[in-house]
């Protein structure tokens, strides 16, 4: 991964809301074709950092380059090459999934086959359904479909699995991996460590507006163990989630 091309470069990023410093000078690079995770507890500054990269929020200082484009004055160009999934974003009321995709294809000026788009996220049977009729997992899958319309170089996913059951989460991870395997860079925020460990190629840990660690999940774990850390309880070969999945099946359900 070290030889990979940098697609996102963040340097000394600062964001202040009045006196409150939400992001305190963070720097990191995201490489082309990886799944990069921003980890951290709620309120650590993940979403703020993400929204600055998405050009949805003005930064206070620092430099952010998206595929070589500057967020200060090339916002329109950046928007054309990124896909954005917001935390809990709504969709136009009263429209079917098919019509929503038509709307987004107009917004991105792209001709797309809506049915194929829906099929790519496993929602081909829901073409005529309204967004509010979908389950949590389906909503997230649809949301990801809308990020793919412009065939973006990078997609940003803000806590995509929050509130989903274990099956739906795993299902979404598979989808995100598929997207990465097709060459799209994925930037994801999460506060679930198992998700980061399973899904992310590299992670940056944000705490109180600062990046306090950044590496591959494996390396971070090794580092901790090397420092002499030991779990209090012997780890078994399976955990309760494995039990749950073994009992209820890995099959992802609609409801």
């Amino acid at each position, binding site marked *: 991964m070290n030889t990979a091309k940098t697609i996102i470069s963040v340097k000394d990023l600062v964001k202040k809301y009045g006196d409150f410093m939400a992001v305190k000078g963070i720097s990191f690079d995201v490489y082309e074709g990886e799944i990069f995770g921003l980890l951290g507890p709620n309120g650590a500054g993940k979403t703020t950092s993400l929204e600055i990269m998405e050009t*949805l929020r003005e930064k206070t200082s620092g430099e952010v380059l998206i595929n070589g484009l500057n967020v200060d004055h090339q916002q*329109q160009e950046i*928007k054309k090459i990124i896909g954005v999934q*917001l935390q809990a974003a709504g969709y136009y009321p009263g429209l079917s999934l098919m*019509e929503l995709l038509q709307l*987004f294809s*107009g917004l991105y*000026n792209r001709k797309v086959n809506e049915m194929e788009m829906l099929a790519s996220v496993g929602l081909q049977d829901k073409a005529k359904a309204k967004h509010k009729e979908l389950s949590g997992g389906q909503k997230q899958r649809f949301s990801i479909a809308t990020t793919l319309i412009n065939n973006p170089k990078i997609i940003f996913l803000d806590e995509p699995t929050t509130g989903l059951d274990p099956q739906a989460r795993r299902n979404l991870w598979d989808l995100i991996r598929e997207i990465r395997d097709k060459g799209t860079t994925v930037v994801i925020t999460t506060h679930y460590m198992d998700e980061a460990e399973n899904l992310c190629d590299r992670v940056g840990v944000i705490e109180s507006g600062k990046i306090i660690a950044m590496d591959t999940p494996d390396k971070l774990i090794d580092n901790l163990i090397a420092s002499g850390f030991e779990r209090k309880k012997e780890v078994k070969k399976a955990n309760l989630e494995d039990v749950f999945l073994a009992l209820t099946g890995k099959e992802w359900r609609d409801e």
Partner: protein
Amino acid sequence: MSEQEYSQITATLAITKASLKSIFRSPSAVVFSLAFPLIFIVVFGFIGGGSISVDVGLTKNSDTTNMLYKILDGENSGVNLIAYKSEELMNADLKKGNIAAIINIQPVDATHDGKIKVALQLCDASGRNGKIFQSQLGSIVSNINSTGTPVSDMKIQMAEPTTIQGRAYKSIDFILPGQLGFSLLASGVFGTAFVFFSLRQTLVLKRFFATPIKRSGIVIGEAIARLIFAMMGSVVIILIGKFAFGFTLIHGVTTFLEMLLLCSLGLIVFMGFGFVVSGLAKNESSIPPLANIITMPQFLLAGTFFSISNFPSWLQPICKILPLTYLNDALRKVAFEGQGLWDVHTQILIILAWGVGVYILAIKVFKWE
């Protein structure tokens, strides 16, 4: 990456299309823009001119023992008969437009067989009220003639010849423009305020911001959708008025198109109020009170149901600053009096002035997030 030029127009029209579909599927939009005005039109269309009250001078020596006088003098006749001390004073009031007409009721001959003749004097100055009274009088007379004591020899004398001589001013000609204007106001203010507030709250707008469309494109796309919807509503209202209730469109298609142009102008200005409300509203439930502050006074005071001249004189200056007053006025002048858009340029300019003011305010208070 394809390097083809990104078209804001394509993106804007995509919003328009989505918004229109959404509006058509929203029951409240359809009810407010179509059903409400139509219900009022139907109700008032059948009630007739009862809701419009006009002042009419009665000549001194008029016969007051006849049926016609009793009807006109009755509580709900919509006519306020005024006896003047002097003929000159009465004539002067007619010329100033303070009264709609002067009538003189006389027995046909001295035998008092119940037959009477009526002379009616109108003047340009009284505007539509004269015609309202003329048509009321006509229908009362024909009612009496067909049922009770015949009123013969009803004569209508015009004080001065007017351009709209002999055209009956039906109550639909008054009610429909008022309802049309009010439906545009309601749709412009409520529709715009709710849509933008909810799009903002549910982060639909934010998701749009993440696409290359400009913010102005989002607003314009939404506005076009509302305009199309409101114009379709106006077309339906005018056509139902025309074919079901005999609404007067003097120059036919030209008048129809001129009305639609005025409607578009009105709606665009009223949408500005909607933007202001959506910006000021702290939560969903504060939208209706805010929107009502804008719509209710105009509903009551802008000549929607009653002619402004019915209001006490201290209230009239307020009536005369409201934008809906001028839209209603312009619509009536165009539809019934056959005036062109140029003839109502004063009204149009006042509406435009409101538009400029409201949009300056809207830009200040509008919130995107």
